[in-house]
């Protein structure tokens, strides 16, 4: 399942609910998942908020393509990808990628693959609001580029 959401989400509740509803108990022996969370500091500056823009249509299509590629490469039973858009506050979860499989190698590698492809190619853009509080500065900046993850 792929979800783009403008609302704050609780990764652990999403995982619990999805795993229950996917109804594959006994089949999966492994779940590897990753949660990316907004920090309150970036490149040495305090960050008090963030705006996450995306390309409606292309973002969903691209995420579906990443997941299909992962399923072609590894023995994957189920995947869950959630990405936040819109206005975020520090500590908010930004992204969740989870993969269920029979054995751990597939879950580990597929989850990391999806996450790295998402970071390097899925059309999302972050604009940070700099300063310890929103009132203090009002300065914003687009994040220039994601760092590599391998």
């Amino acid at each position: 399942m792929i979800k783009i959401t403008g609302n704050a989400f609780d990764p652990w509740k999403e995982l619990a609910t999805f795993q229950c509803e996917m109804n594959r108990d006994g089949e999966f022996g492994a779940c590897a998942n990753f949660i990316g969370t907004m920090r309150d500091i970036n490149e040495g500056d305090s960050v008090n908020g963030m705006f996450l823009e995306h390309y409606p249509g292309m973002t969903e299509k691209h995420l579906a393509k990443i997941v299909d590629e992962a399923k072609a490469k590894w023995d994957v039973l189920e995947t869950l990808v959630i990405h936040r858009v819109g206005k975020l506050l520090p500590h908010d979860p930004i992204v969740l990628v989870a993969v269920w499989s029979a054995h751990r190698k597939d879950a580990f590698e597929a989850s990391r693959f999806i996450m790295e492809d998402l970071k390097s190619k899925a059309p999302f853009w972050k604009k940070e609001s700099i300063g310890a509080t929103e009132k203090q500065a009002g300065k914003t900046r687009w994040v220039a580029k994601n760092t590599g993850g391998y």
Partner: protein
Amino acid sequence: MSIKVLYFASLKEVFGHGEERLKTDGLNTVGKVWRQVSKGHDISQQVLFSVNQEYAEASSLVKDGDEVAFFPPVTGG
């Protein structure tokens, strides 16, 4: 012929709008469309292209009704 052109993130701010329709007579590649729209704008950063919501190259062909988008390197996740 005419195409839909989209700009995202910092490029949307540079252009002052996120979407426009463009007459594309003679503009049969993404690279030519980009040279046309970017004329007079000071764009120092790397720009990525897509046609109909898939990544494209400067040499990718553009046809009537296509959706072409320009955006900076992605920073999601």
